[in-house]
Protein backbone atom coordinates (compact mmCIF):
# COMPACT_ATOMS: atom_id res chain seq x y z
CA UNK A 1 0.00 0.00 0.00
CA UNK A 2 1.00 3.61 -0.43
CA UNK A 3 3.25 5.74 1.77
CA UNK A 4 2.90 9.46 2.38
CA UNK A 5 4.38 12.20 4.47
CA UNK A 6 2.29 14.44 6.71
CA UNK A 7 3.89 17.61 8.13
CA UNK A 8 3.02 17.79 11.84
CA UNK A 9 2.00 21.42 11.55
CA UNK A 10 -0.56 20.43 8.94
CA UNK A 11 -2.18 17.69 11.03
CA UNK A 12 -5.19 19.87 11.86
CA UNK A 13 -5.68 20.59 8.15
CA UNK A 14 -5.58 16.85 7.48
CA UNK A 15 -8.22 16.15 10.15
CA UNK A 16 -10.39 19.03 8.87
CA UNK A 17 -10.25 17.56 5.38
CA UNK A 18 -11.99 14.36 6.52
CA UNK A 19 -15.44 15.82 5.88
CA UNK A 20 -17.09 12.50 5.08
CA UNK A 21 -16.16 11.03 8.46
CA UNK A 22 -17.00 11.51 12.10
CA UNK A 23 -13.59 11.87 13.74
CA UNK A 24 -12.87 10.54 17.23
CA UNK A 25 -9.62 11.47 18.96
CA UNK A 26 -8.24 11.69 22.49
CA UNK A 27 -9.88 14.69 24.17
CA UNK A 28 -8.95 16.21 27.53
CA UNK A 29 -11.81 15.83 29.94
CA UNK A 30 -11.70 16.51 33.69
CA UNK A 31 -8.00 15.77 33.84
CA UNK A 32 -8.25 12.60 31.75
CA UNK A 33 -7.97 12.02 28.06
CA UNK A 34 -10.67 9.90 26.49
CA UNK A 35 -11.57 9.06 22.90
CA UNK A 36 -14.51 11.25 21.89
CA UNK A 37 -16.12 12.75 18.82
CA UNK A 38 -14.36 15.99 17.90
CA UNK A 39 -15.81 18.87 15.91
CA UNK A 40 -12.58 20.88 15.81
CA UNK A 41 -9.17 19.26 15.24
CA UNK A 42 -7.73 21.48 17.96
CA UNK A 43 -9.58 19.35 20.50
CA UNK A 44 -7.37 16.35 19.68
CA UNK A 45 -4.73 15.82 22.36
CA UNK A 46 -1.94 13.72 20.93
CA UNK A 47 0.69 14.42 23.58
CA UNK A 48 0.12 11.26 25.62
CA UNK A 49 1.77 8.01 24.66
CA UNK A 50 -1.50 6.27 25.35
CA UNK A 51 -4.82 7.09 26.97
CA UNK A 52 -5.95 5.65 30.31
CA UNK A 53 -9.07 4.37 28.53
CA UNK A 54 -8.78 2.40 25.31
CA UNK A 55 -10.72 3.41 22.18
CA UNK A 56 -12.92 0.34 22.79
CA UNK A 57 -15.66 2.73 23.93
CA UNK A 58 -16.14 4.18 20.43
CA UNK A 59 -17.38 0.82 19.13
CA UNK A 60 -18.46 -0.81 22.40
CA UNK A 61 -19.66 2.14 24.52
CA UNK A 62 -19.71 2.04 28.31
CA UNK A 63 -23.47 2.43 28.08
CA UNK A 64 -25.72 2.08 25.05
CA UNK A 65 -29.40 1.66 24.38
CA UNK A 66 -30.30 -1.83 23.16
CA UNK A 67 -34.06 -1.36 23.04
CA UNK A 68 -36.56 1.44 23.41
CA UNK A 69 -39.98 0.67 24.88
CA UNK A 70 -42.89 2.64 23.48
CA UNK A 71 -46.08 3.74 25.25
CA UNK A 72 -47.58 0.27 24.77
CA UNK A 73 -44.39 -1.21 26.23
CA UNK A 74 -43.45 -2.80 22.91
CA UNK A 75 -39.71 -3.18 22.29
CA UNK A 76 -38.16 -1.33 19.36
CA UNK A 77 -34.57 -1.19 18.17
CA UNK A 78 -32.92 2.24 18.21
CA UNK A 79 -31.99 3.58 14.77
CA UNK A 80 -28.35 2.47 14.85
CA UNK A 81 -25.73 3.82 12.47
CA UNK A 82 -27.68 3.33 9.25
CA UNK A 83 -27.24 6.37 7.03
CA UNK A 84 -24.61 7.96 9.25
CA UNK A 85 -21.08 8.93 8.23
CA UNK A 86 -18.33 6.35 8.79
CA UNK A 87 -16.17 6.96 11.85
CA UNK A 88 -12.42 7.49 12.08
CA UNK A 89 -10.68 6.90 15.39
CA UNK A 90 -7.47 8.90 15.34
CA UNK A 91 -4.54 8.19 17.63
CA UNK A 92 -5.00 4.47 18.26
CA UNK A 93 -1.97 2.54 19.52
CA UNK A 94 -1.16 -0.84 17.93
CA UNK A 95 -2.08 -2.72 21.13
CA UNK A 96 -5.54 -1.13 21.18
CA UNK A 97 -6.06 -1.89 17.48
CA UNK A 98 -5.34 -5.54 18.27
CA UNK A 99 -7.79 -5.25 21.14
CA UNK A 100 -10.60 -5.02 18.58
CA UNK A 101 -9.37 -8.29 17.05
CA UNK A 102 -9.94 -9.85 20.48
CA UNK A 103 -13.46 -8.39 20.76
CA UNK A 104 -14.52 -9.30 17.21
CA UNK A 105 -15.08 -13.06 17.70
CA UNK A 106 -17.09 -12.43 20.88
CA UNK A 107 -19.57 -10.24 19.01
CA UNK A 108 -19.40 -11.92 15.58
CA UNK A 109 -19.78 -15.59 16.37
CA UNK A 110 -22.94 -17.68 16.78
CA UNK A 111 -25.30 -14.81 17.60
CA UNK A 112 -23.95 -11.79 15.65
CA UNK A 113 -24.35 -8.63 17.73
CA UNK A 114 -25.68 -5.86 15.47
CA UNK A 115 -24.81 -3.04 17.88
CA UNK A 116 -21.10 -3.83 17.90
CA UNK A 117 -20.85 -4.99 14.30
CA UNK A 118 -22.55 -1.93 12.74
CA UNK A 119 -20.10 0.41 14.47
CA UNK A 120 -17.13 -1.87 13.88
CA UNK A 121 -17.82 -2.11 10.15
CA UNK A 122 -18.22 1.64 9.76
CA UNK A 123 -15.17 2.59 11.82
CA UNK A 124 -11.59 3.09 10.63
CA UNK A 125 -8.60 3.04 12.92
CA UNK A 126 -5.74 5.48 12.35
CA UNK A 127 -2.89 4.56 14.61
CA UNK A 128 0.44 5.70 15.93
CA UNK A 129 3.57 3.62 16.04
CA UNK A 130 4.90 3.46 19.63
CA UNK A 131 8.43 4.83 19.62
CA UNK A 132 8.49 5.33 23.39
CA UNK A 133 6.53 2.56 25.12
CA UNK A 134 5.37 2.94 28.74
CA UNK A 135 7.27 1.14 31.50
CA UNK A 136 4.46 -1.42 31.92
CA UNK A 137 3.93 -2.19 28.22
CA UNK A 138 4.38 -5.89 27.43
CA UNK A 139 2.71 -6.24 24.01
CA UNK A 140 5.59 -8.26 22.58
CA UNK A 141 4.91 -11.04 25.12
CA UNK A 142 1.34 -11.59 23.90
CA UNK A 143 1.84 -11.53 20.15
CA UNK A 144 1.91 -7.76 19.60
CA UNK A 145 4.47 -5.29 18.36
CA UNK A 146 4.73 -1.54 19.10
CA UNK A 147 5.15 -0.77 15.40
CA UNK A 148 2.66 -3.30 14.03
CA UNK A 149 0.00 -2.20 11.55
CA UNK A 150 -2.20 -5.18 12.55
CA UNK A 151 -5.80 -4.10 12.87
CA UNK A 152 -5.10 -0.53 11.72
CA UNK A 153 -6.25 1.12 8.49
CA UNK A 154 -3.52 3.76 8.57
CA UNK A 155 -0.31 3.75 10.60
CA UNK A 156 1.57 6.96 11.44
CA UNK A 157 5.19 6.97 12.55
CA UNK A 158 6.60 10.06 14.26
CA UNK A 159 9.73 11.26 12.46
CA UNK A 160 10.13 14.44 14.54
CA UNK A 161 8.77 17.18 12.29
CA UNK A 162 6.64 14.87 10.14
CA UNK A 163 4.52 11.77 10.34
CA UNK A 164 5.33 8.91 7.99
CA UNK A 165 1.86 7.78 6.88
CA UNK A 166 1.32 4.18 5.72
CA UNK A 167 -1.95 3.17 4.16
CA UNK A 168 -2.71 -0.36 5.35
CA UNK A 169 -6.19 -1.13 4.00
CA UNK A 170 -8.48 0.01 1.20
CA UNK A 171 -10.65 1.74 3.81
CA UNK A 172 -7.54 3.64 4.85
CA UNK A 173 -6.90 4.55 1.25
CA UNK A 174 -10.21 6.44 1.16
CA UNK A 175 -9.17 8.50 4.18
CA UNK A 176 -5.78 9.26 2.61
CA UNK A 177 -7.57 10.40 -0.55
CA UNK A 178 -9.71 12.87 1.39
CA UNK A 179 -6.65 14.34 3.04
CA UNK A 180 -4.48 14.10 -0.10
CA UNK A 181 -4.08 17.88 -0.40
CA UNK A 182 -1.88 18.01 2.73
CA UNK A 183 0.08 14.83 2.03
CA UNK A 184 3.37 14.61 0.18
CA UNK A 185 5.73 11.80 -0.80
CA UNK A 186 8.42 10.65 1.62
CA UNK A 187 12.07 10.66 0.62
CA UNK A 188 14.02 7.41 0.65
CA UNK A 189 15.89 8.76 3.67
CA UNK A 190 12.62 9.20 5.54
CA UNK A 191 11.61 5.70 4.52
CA UNK A 192 14.86 4.34 5.97
CA UNK A 193 14.38 6.37 9.15
CA UNK A 194 10.87 4.94 9.57
CA UNK A 195 12.11 1.39 9.12
CA UNK A 196 14.86 1.98 11.63
CA UNK A 197 12.33 3.23 14.21
CA UNK A 198 10.07 0.23 13.55
CA UNK A 199 12.96 -2.14 14.08
CA UNK A 200 14.04 -0.47 17.31
CA UNK A 201 10.61 -0.24 18.93
CA UNK A 202 10.24 -3.84 20.17
CA UNK A 203 13.56 -3.59 22.02
CA UNK A 204 12.22 -0.67 24.03
CA UNK A 205 9.57 -2.85 25.64
CA UNK A 206 10.95 -3.38 29.14
CA UNK A 207 8.57 -5.95 30.58
CA UNK A 208 8.37 -9.47 29.24
CA UNK A 209 6.80 -12.76 30.20
CA UNK A 210 7.04 -16.03 28.31
CA UNK A 211 3.37 -17.01 28.19
CA UNK A 212 4.11 -20.49 26.84
CA UNK A 213 2.47 -23.06 29.08
CA UNK A 214 0.65 -20.49 31.26
CA UNK A 215 -2.80 -21.82 30.27
CA UNK A 216 -2.09 -25.33 31.49
CA UNK A 217 -0.40 -24.00 34.65
CA UNK A 218 -3.49 -21.92 35.51
CA UNK A 219 -5.69 -24.97 35.07
CA UNK A 220 -3.37 -27.35 36.91
CA UNK A 221 -2.98 -25.05 39.90
CA UNK A 222 -6.56 -23.79 40.00
CA UNK A 223 -6.99 -24.75 43.67
CA UNK A 224 -3.54 -23.56 44.79
CA UNK A 225 -3.37 -21.46 47.94
CA UNK A 226 -1.17 -18.92 46.13
CA UNK A 227 -4.20 -17.36 44.42
CA UNK A 228 -5.25 -15.99 47.79
CA UNK A 229 -1.90 -14.23 48.15
CA UNK A 230 -2.01 -12.90 44.59
CA UNK A 231 -5.42 -11.35 45.22
CA UNK A 232 -4.59 -10.09 48.72
CA UNK A 233 -4.12 -6.48 47.65
CA UNK A 234 -7.10 -6.34 45.24
CA UNK A 235 -9.93 -4.09 46.40
CA UNK A 236 -12.42 -5.17 43.69
CA UNK A 237 -12.53 -1.65 42.24
CA UNK A 238 -12.78 -2.97 38.68
CA UNK A 239 -10.36 -0.43 37.11
CA UNK A 240 -8.46 -3.28 35.41
CA UNK A 241 -11.62 -4.28 33.53
CA UNK A 242 -12.85 -0.77 32.74
CA UNK A 243 -9.56 0.23 31.14
CA UNK A 244 -8.90 -3.10 29.42
CA UNK A 245 -9.14 -3.02 25.61
CA UNK A 246 -10.28 -6.66 25.47
CA UNK A 247 -12.74 -6.90 28.40
CA UNK A 248 -16.22 -7.33 26.96
CA UNK A 249 -18.41 -8.31 29.91
CA UNK A 250 -21.60 -6.35 30.23
CA UNK A 251 -24.77 -6.00 32.22
CA UNK A 252 -28.24 -5.42 30.79
CA UNK A 253 -30.55 -3.16 32.78
CA UNK A 254 -33.94 -1.60 32.15
CA UNK A 255 -34.34 2.02 33.18
CA UNK A 256 -37.39 4.24 33.37
CA UNK A 257 -36.94 7.96 32.94
CA UNK A 258 -39.99 10.26 32.93
CA UNK A 259 -42.38 7.58 31.72
CA UNK A 260 -40.01 6.32 29.01
CA UNK A 261 -38.21 3.06 29.35
CA UNK A 262 -35.05 1.73 27.73
CA UNK A 263 -33.06 -1.46 27.92
CA UNK A 264 -29.39 -0.57 28.28
CA UNK A 265 -26.16 -2.46 27.90
CA UNK A 266 -23.58 -1.26 30.40
CA UNK A 267 -20.01 -2.43 30.94
CA UNK A 268 -19.78 -4.75 33.90
CA UNK A 269 -16.81 -6.06 35.82
CA UNK A 270 -15.97 -9.60 36.89
CA UNK A 271 -14.24 -7.97 39.88
CA UNK A 272 -17.61 -7.08 41.45
CA UNK A 273 -19.32 -9.62 43.75
CA UNK A 274 -22.75 -8.80 42.22
CA UNK A 275 -21.51 -9.91 38.82
CA UNK A 276 -22.10 -13.60 39.57
CA UNK A 277 -24.47 -13.30 42.55
CA UNK A 278 -27.49 -15.58 42.14
CA UNK A 279 -30.95 -14.37 43.21
CA UNK A 280 -30.87 -17.18 45.79
CA UNK A 281 -27.90 -15.56 47.53
CA UNK A 282 -25.48 -18.22 46.29
CA UNK A 283 -22.33 -16.78 44.71
CA UNK A 284 -19.96 -19.04 42.77
CA UNK A 285 -17.22 -16.38 43.03
CA UNK A 286 -17.80 -14.83 46.45
CA UNK A 287 -14.34 -13.47 47.25
CA UNK A 288 -11.63 -11.46 45.49
CA UNK A 289 -9.58 -14.63 45.22
CA UNK A 290 -12.08 -16.41 42.94
CA UNK A 291 -12.68 -13.23 40.98
CA UNK A 292 -9.03 -12.37 40.30
CA UNK A 293 -8.34 -16.00 39.43
CA UNK A 294 -11.30 -16.05 37.05
CA UNK A 295 -10.06 -12.91 35.29
CA UNK A 296 -6.63 -14.43 34.72
CA UNK A 297 -8.27 -17.72 33.71
CA UNK A 298 -10.50 -15.89 31.23
CA UNK A 299 -7.60 -13.97 29.68
CA UNK A 300 -4.99 -16.71 29.52
CA UNK A 301 -6.94 -19.99 29.38
CA UNK A 302 -10.60 -19.54 28.41
CA UNK A 303 -9.83 -17.08 25.62
CA UNK A 304 -7.28 -19.47 24.13
CA UNK A 305 -9.81 -22.32 24.34
CA UNK A 306 -12.51 -20.21 22.69
CA UNK A 307 -10.61 -18.08 20.19
CA UNK A 308 -7.07 -19.44 20.00
CA UNK A 309 -5.33 -16.34 21.41
CA UNK A 310 -4.86 -14.87 24.88
CA UNK A 311 -7.40 -12.16 25.72
CA UNK A 312 -4.67 -9.64 26.45
CA UNK A 313 -2.77 -7.22 24.22
CA UNK A 314 -0.15 -6.20 26.78
CA UNK A 315 -1.13 -2.53 27.02
CA UNK A 316 -0.21 -2.55 30.70
CA UNK A 317 -3.13 -0.34 31.80
CA UNK A 318 -4.33 -2.79 34.46
CA UNK A 319 -0.86 -2.64 36.02
CA UNK A 320 -0.31 1.10 35.73
CA UNK A 321 -3.77 2.13 36.89
CA UNK A 322 -4.36 -0.40 39.68
CA UNK A 323 -4.56 1.59 42.95
CA UNK A 324 -3.14 -1.38 44.86
CA UNK A 325 -0.30 -2.29 42.47
CA UNK A 326 -1.71 -5.67 41.53
CA UNK A 327 0.68 -6.58 38.74
CA UNK A 328 -0.58 -8.94 36.03
CA UNK A 329 2.88 -9.69 34.62
CA UNK A 330 4.30 -10.42 38.06
CA UNK A 331 1.28 -12.62 38.87
CA UNK A 332 1.67 -14.52 35.61
CA UNK A 333 5.31 -15.15 36.50
CA UNK A 334 4.31 -16.58 39.89
CA UNK A 335 1.84 -18.97 38.22
CA UNK A 336 4.34 -19.85 35.52
CA UNK A 337 6.93 -20.83 38.14
CA UNK A 338 4.58 -23.07 40.14
Amino acid at each position, binding site marked *: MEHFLLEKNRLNEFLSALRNYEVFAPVRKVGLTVFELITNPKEAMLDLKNQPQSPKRVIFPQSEI*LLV*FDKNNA*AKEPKGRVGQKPQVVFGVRPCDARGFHMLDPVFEREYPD*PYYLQKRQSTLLVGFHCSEPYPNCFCTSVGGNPSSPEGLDILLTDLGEQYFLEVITSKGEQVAKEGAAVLSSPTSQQQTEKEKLSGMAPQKIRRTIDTEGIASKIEKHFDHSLWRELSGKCISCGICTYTCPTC*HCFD*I*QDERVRGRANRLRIWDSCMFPEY*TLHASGHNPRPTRTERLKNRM*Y*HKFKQNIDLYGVPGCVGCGRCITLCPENVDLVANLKVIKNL
Partner: protein
Amino acid sequence: MTENPYLPRRAKIESIKQETTGERIIKTFAVVIEDQAYRERFQHKPGQCAMLGINGVGESMISIASSPTNKEFLNFSVMKLGKVTSAIHELEAGDLITIRGPYGNNFPLDEWYQKNIITIGGGIGQAPLRSIIQYVLDKKGEFGGLDIIYGARTTADLCYREDHFQTEQSVFWQRRNVRVHLSIDVPEAGWDRFVGVVPDNLLRLKPSPENAIAITCGPPVMIKFVIKNLLALGFKDEQIYTTLENRMKCGIGKCGRCNVGSFYVCKDGPVFSYARLKNLPEKG
Protein backbone atom coordinates in the same frame (compact mmCIF):
# COMPACT_ATOMS: atom_id res chain seq x y z
CA MET B 1 -27.81 -7.00 9.10
CA THR B 2 -28.85 -10.27 10.67
CA GLU B 3 -31.57 -10.61 13.27
CA ASN B 4 -31.16 -8.80 16.56
CA PRO B 5 -30.59 -11.53 19.18
CA TYR B 6 -31.59 -9.19 22.03
CA LEU B 7 -35.03 -8.40 20.63
CA PRO B 8 -37.64 -10.26 22.68
CA ARG B 9 -41.04 -11.33 21.34
CA ARG B 10 -44.36 -10.98 23.10
CA ALA B 11 -46.05 -14.03 24.58
CA LYS B 12 -49.44 -14.33 26.21
CA ILE B 13 -49.86 -15.96 29.60
CA GLU B 14 -52.61 -18.52 29.09
CA SER B 15 -52.76 -19.77 32.66
CA ILE B 16 -50.89 -19.63 35.94
CA LYS B 17 -50.65 -22.34 38.56
CA GLN B 18 -49.23 -21.69 42.00
CA GLU B 19 -47.05 -24.69 42.75
CA THR B 20 -45.84 -24.02 46.27
CA THR B 21 -47.15 -22.25 49.34
CA GLY B 22 -43.96 -22.63 51.35
CA GLU B 23 -41.35 -20.01 52.15
CA ARG B 24 -40.45 -19.61 48.49
CA ILE B 25 -43.38 -19.29 46.13
CA ILE B 26 -43.17 -20.97 42.73
CA LYS B 27 -45.70 -20.40 39.98
CA THR B 28 -45.89 -22.26 36.68
CA PHE B 29 -46.84 -20.12 33.71
CA ALA B 30 -48.26 -21.51 30.47
CA VAL B 31 -47.34 -19.08 27.70
CA VAL B 32 -47.96 -18.86 23.95
CA ILE B 33 -45.73 -16.77 21.68
CA GLU B 34 -47.88 -14.25 19.77
CA ASP B 35 -45.92 -13.99 16.53
CA GLN B 36 -46.65 -17.09 14.46
CA ALA B 37 -43.33 -17.21 12.62
CA TYR B 38 -41.34 -16.90 15.85
CA ARG B 39 -43.59 -19.44 17.56
CA GLU B 40 -42.95 -21.97 14.80
CA ARG B 41 -39.23 -21.30 14.88
CA PHE B 42 -39.11 -21.72 18.67
CA GLN B 43 -38.44 -25.47 18.62
CA HIS B 44 -36.92 -26.33 21.98
CA LYS B 45 -35.46 -29.60 23.17
CA PRO B 46 -35.64 -30.91 26.76
CA GLY B 47 -33.03 -29.16 28.89
CA GLN B 48 -33.09 -25.81 27.10
CA CYS B 49 -33.94 -22.43 28.61
CA ALA B 50 -35.44 -19.14 27.50
CA MET B 51 -35.20 -15.51 28.55
CA LEU B 52 -38.46 -14.37 30.06
CA GLY B 53 -38.92 -10.68 30.64
CA ILE B 54 -41.04 -7.66 31.24
CA ASN B 55 -40.14 -4.62 29.20
CA GLY B 56 -39.03 -1.88 31.53
CA VAL B 57 -38.18 -4.31 34.33
CA GLY B 58 -35.71 -6.82 32.92
CA GLU B 59 -35.15 -10.42 31.90
CA SER B 60 -34.37 -13.72 33.64
CA MET B 61 -33.20 -17.02 32.21
CA ILE B 62 -35.73 -19.73 33.06
CA SER B 63 -35.73 -23.47 32.23
CA ILE B 64 -38.45 -24.65 29.91
CA ALA B 65 -40.50 -26.97 32.13
CA SER B 66 -42.61 -28.53 29.38
CA SER B 67 -41.78 -31.05 26.71
CA PRO B 68 -41.58 -30.13 23.02
CA THR B 69 -44.21 -32.83 22.50
CA ASN B 70 -46.61 -30.31 24.01
CA LYS B 71 -47.43 -28.10 21.03
CA GLU B 72 -50.05 -25.98 22.82
CA PHE B 73 -47.93 -23.87 25.17
CA LEU B 74 -44.60 -23.54 26.94
CA ASN B 75 -44.33 -23.99 30.70
CA PHE B 76 -42.03 -21.97 32.92
CA SER B 77 -41.81 -22.53 36.66
CA VAL B 78 -40.62 -19.31 38.26
CA MET B 79 -39.56 -18.90 41.87
CA LYS B 80 -40.23 -15.44 43.28
CA LEU B 81 -36.77 -14.23 44.31
CA GLY B 82 -35.36 -11.15 42.57
CA LYS B 83 -36.67 -8.06 40.81
CA VAL B 84 -37.74 -9.70 37.56
CA THR B 85 -39.20 -12.90 39.01
CA SER B 86 -41.14 -10.85 41.58
CA ALA B 87 -42.61 -8.73 38.78
CA ILE B 88 -43.48 -11.87 36.79
CA HIS B 89 -45.33 -13.18 39.85
CA GLU B 90 -47.54 -10.07 39.76
CA LEU B 91 -48.83 -10.97 36.29
CA GLU B 92 -52.19 -12.58 35.65
CA ALA B 93 -53.58 -14.90 33.00
CA GLY B 94 -54.11 -12.91 29.81
CA ASP B 95 -51.15 -10.58 30.52
CA LEU B 96 -48.20 -10.32 28.16
CA ILE B 97 -44.65 -11.35 28.92
CA THR B 98 -41.58 -11.30 26.66
CA ILE B 99 -39.57 -14.28 25.54
CA ARG B 100 -36.43 -14.98 23.50
CA GLY B 101 -34.66 -18.26 22.91
CA PRO B 102 -34.55 -21.19 23.15
CA TYR B 103 -31.00 -21.19 24.52
CA GLY B 104 -28.39 -23.72 25.47
CA ASN B 105 -27.72 -27.35 24.73
CA ASN B 106 -30.09 -30.18 25.60
CA PHE B 107 -30.23 -33.68 26.97
CA PRO B 108 -28.93 -36.11 24.30
CA LEU B 109 -32.21 -38.01 24.13
CA ASP B 110 -31.31 -39.52 20.75
CA GLU B 111 -28.51 -41.43 22.48
CA TRP B 112 -30.85 -42.73 25.19
CA TYR B 113 -33.04 -45.00 23.05
CA GLN B 114 -34.47 -47.85 25.18
CA LYS B 115 -32.49 -46.75 28.24
CA ASN B 116 -33.90 -46.67 31.74
CA ILE B 117 -34.23 -43.04 32.77
CA ILE B 118 -33.82 -41.96 36.40
CA THR B 119 -34.49 -38.32 37.29
CA ILE B 120 -33.36 -37.08 40.69
CA GLY B 121 -34.69 -33.63 41.54
CA GLY B 122 -34.82 -31.29 44.49
CA GLY B 123 -37.07 -28.25 44.93
CA ILE B 124 -37.34 -26.09 41.82
CA GLY B 125 -34.64 -28.27 40.24
CA GLN B 126 -37.55 -30.43 39.10
CA ALA B 127 -38.45 -27.80 36.46
CA PRO B 128 -35.87 -28.77 33.78
CA LEU B 129 -36.39 -32.46 34.66
CA ARG B 130 -40.11 -32.07 33.99
CA SER B 131 -39.35 -31.41 30.31
CA ILE B 132 -37.66 -34.83 30.18
CA ILE B 133 -40.29 -36.59 32.27
CA GLN B 134 -43.09 -35.34 30.02
CA TYR B 135 -41.09 -36.21 26.92
CA VAL B 136 -40.38 -39.76 28.11
CA LEU B 137 -44.04 -40.28 29.11
CA ASP B 138 -45.19 -39.02 25.70
CA LYS B 139 -42.69 -41.23 23.85
CA LYS B 140 -42.56 -44.13 26.28
CA GLY B 141 -42.00 -46.70 23.53
CA GLU B 142 -38.56 -45.18 22.86
CA PHE B 143 -37.38 -45.60 26.45
CA GLY B 144 -37.08 -48.30 29.10
CA GLY B 145 -38.24 -47.63 32.65
CA LEU B 146 -38.68 -44.21 34.24
CA ASP B 147 -37.92 -43.55 37.88
CA ILE B 148 -38.87 -40.09 39.15
CA ILE B 149 -37.07 -39.38 42.41
CA TYR B 150 -38.10 -36.02 43.75
CA GLY B 151 -38.00 -34.25 47.08
CA ALA B 152 -38.54 -30.88 48.71
CA ARG B 153 -38.25 -29.44 52.19
CA THR B 154 -41.97 -29.78 53.01
CA THR B 155 -45.10 -30.87 51.15
CA ALA B 156 -45.80 -27.16 50.63
CA ASP B 157 -42.55 -26.92 48.63
CA LEU B 158 -43.22 -29.83 46.25
CA CYS B 159 -43.73 -28.74 42.64
CA TYR B 160 -46.14 -30.44 40.21
CA ARG B 161 -47.68 -32.25 43.19
CA GLU B 162 -50.90 -33.43 41.54
CA ASP B 163 -49.04 -34.56 38.41
CA HIS B 164 -46.64 -36.58 40.50
CA PHE B 165 -49.39 -38.11 42.66
CA GLN B 166 -51.40 -39.02 39.56
CA THR B 167 -48.46 -40.69 37.84
CA GLU B 168 -47.57 -42.45 41.10
CA GLN B 169 -51.09 -43.92 41.50
CA SER B 170 -51.66 -44.70 37.82
CA VAL B 171 -51.93 -48.42 37.07
CA PHE B 172 -51.39 -47.54 33.40
CA TRP B 173 -47.94 -46.06 34.16
CA GLN B 174 -47.05 -48.72 36.77
CA ARG B 175 -47.52 -51.37 34.08
CA ARG B 176 -45.19 -49.38 31.85
CA ASN B 177 -42.37 -49.28 34.38
CA VAL B 178 -42.90 -45.71 35.56
CA ARG B 179 -42.34 -45.17 39.26
CA VAL B 180 -42.52 -42.02 41.38
CA HIS B 181 -40.50 -41.72 44.61
CA LEU B 182 -41.37 -38.55 46.50
CA SER B 183 -39.76 -37.33 49.70
CA ILE B 184 -39.79 -34.44 52.14
CA ASP B 185 -36.93 -33.44 54.41
CA VAL B 186 -38.77 -33.39 57.75
CA PRO B 187 -41.77 -35.48 58.95
CA GLU B 188 -45.30 -34.17 58.46
CA ALA B 189 -48.64 -35.59 59.59
CA GLY B 190 -50.23 -37.67 56.84
CA TRP B 191 -47.02 -38.16 54.83
CA ASP B 192 -46.43 -41.89 54.37
CA ARG B 193 -43.64 -41.68 51.79
CA PHE B 194 -39.92 -41.23 52.45
CA VAL B 195 -38.74 -38.60 54.91
CA GLY B 196 -35.16 -37.44 54.45
CA VAL B 197 -32.95 -35.72 51.92
CA VAL B 198 -32.97 -36.69 48.25
CA PRO B 199 -29.48 -38.28 48.15
CA ASP B 200 -30.56 -40.59 51.01
CA ASN B 201 -33.75 -41.56 49.16
CA LEU B 202 -31.59 -42.39 46.16
CA LEU B 203 -29.34 -44.66 48.27
CA ARG B 204 -32.40 -46.38 49.73
CA LEU B 205 -33.95 -46.99 46.29
CA LYS B 206 -30.67 -48.28 44.81
CA PRO B 207 -31.58 -47.95 41.11
CA SER B 208 -29.54 -50.25 38.91
CA PRO B 209 -26.91 -48.62 36.68
CA GLU B 210 -27.59 -51.32 34.09
CA ASN B 211 -28.61 -49.66 30.80
CA ALA B 212 -29.53 -46.52 32.79
CA ILE B 213 -29.11 -42.76 32.61
CA ALA B 214 -29.40 -40.64 35.76
CA ILE B 215 -30.22 -36.95 35.50
CA THR B 216 -30.09 -34.70 38.53
CA CYS B 217 -30.99 -31.09 39.19
CA GLY B 218 -31.44 -29.21 42.44
CA PRO B 219 -29.46 -27.17 44.96
CA PRO B 220 -25.64 -27.43 44.46
CA VAL B 221 -25.17 -29.36 47.71
CA MET B 222 -27.85 -31.89 46.70
CA ILE B 223 -26.28 -32.41 43.27
CA LYS B 224 -22.92 -33.00 44.91
CA PHE B 225 -24.21 -35.81 47.14
CA VAL B 226 -26.47 -37.29 44.48
CA ILE B 227 -23.48 -37.66 42.16
CA LYS B 228 -21.40 -39.15 44.98
CA ASN B 229 -24.15 -41.69 45.70
CA LEU B 230 -24.69 -42.52 42.02
CA LEU B 231 -20.99 -43.28 41.67
CA ALA B 232 -21.22 -45.48 44.78
CA LEU B 233 -24.15 -47.33 43.16
CA GLY B 234 -21.91 -48.14 40.19
CA PHE B 235 -23.00 -45.45 37.71
CA LYS B 236 -20.25 -44.40 35.31
CA ASP B 237 -19.38 -40.72 34.74
CA GLU B 238 -20.98 -40.74 31.31
CA GLN B 239 -24.26 -42.14 32.69
CA ILE B 240 -24.75 -39.11 34.97
CA TYR B 241 -26.15 -35.78 33.75
CA THR B 242 -26.93 -32.53 35.50
CA THR B 243 -28.06 -29.07 34.53
CA LEU B 244 -26.24 -26.05 35.92
CA GLU B 245 -27.41 -22.51 36.43
CA ASN B 246 -25.58 -19.25 36.86
CA ARG B 247 -26.44 -15.59 36.75
CA MET B 248 -27.05 -14.61 33.12
CA LYS B 249 -27.76 -11.40 31.25
CA CYS B 250 -27.37 -11.97 27.51
CA GLY B 251 -28.04 -15.71 27.16
CA ILE B 252 -25.84 -15.87 24.06
CA GLY B 253 -22.28 -16.20 25.36
CA LYS B 254 -21.22 -12.56 25.31
CA CYS B 255 -21.88 -10.89 28.66
CA GLY B 256 -19.32 -13.13 30.34
CA ARG B 257 -20.66 -13.94 33.79
CA CYS B 258 -22.06 -17.48 33.52
CA ASN B 259 -18.80 -19.23 32.64
CA VAL B 260 -17.76 -22.42 34.37
CA GLY B 261 -14.18 -22.90 33.27
CA SER B 262 -14.09 -22.23 29.54
CA PHE B 263 -17.78 -23.00 29.02
CA TYR B 264 -20.66 -20.57 29.12
CA VAL B 265 -23.60 -22.22 30.90
CA CYS B 266 -26.09 -20.26 28.73
CA LYS B 267 -24.70 -21.52 25.45
CA ASP B 268 -22.48 -24.59 26.09
CA GLY B 269 -24.71 -25.76 28.99
CA PRO B 270 -26.91 -25.94 30.92
CA VAL B 271 -26.69 -29.72 30.42
CA PHE B 272 -23.39 -31.28 31.48
CA SER B 273 -22.52 -34.94 31.73
CA TYR B 274 -20.52 -35.72 34.84
CA ALA B 275 -17.73 -36.85 32.51
CA ARG B 276 -17.55 -33.26 31.26
CA LEU B 277 -18.38 -31.58 34.56
CA LYS B 278 -15.74 -33.29 36.67
CA ASN B 279 -12.91 -31.85 34.58
CA LEU B 280 -14.09 -28.28 35.06
CA PRO B 281 -12.09 -26.15 37.50
CA GLU B 282 -15.14 -24.76 39.30
CA LYS B 283 -18.54 -26.36 39.57
CA GLY B 284 -20.78 -23.29 39.52
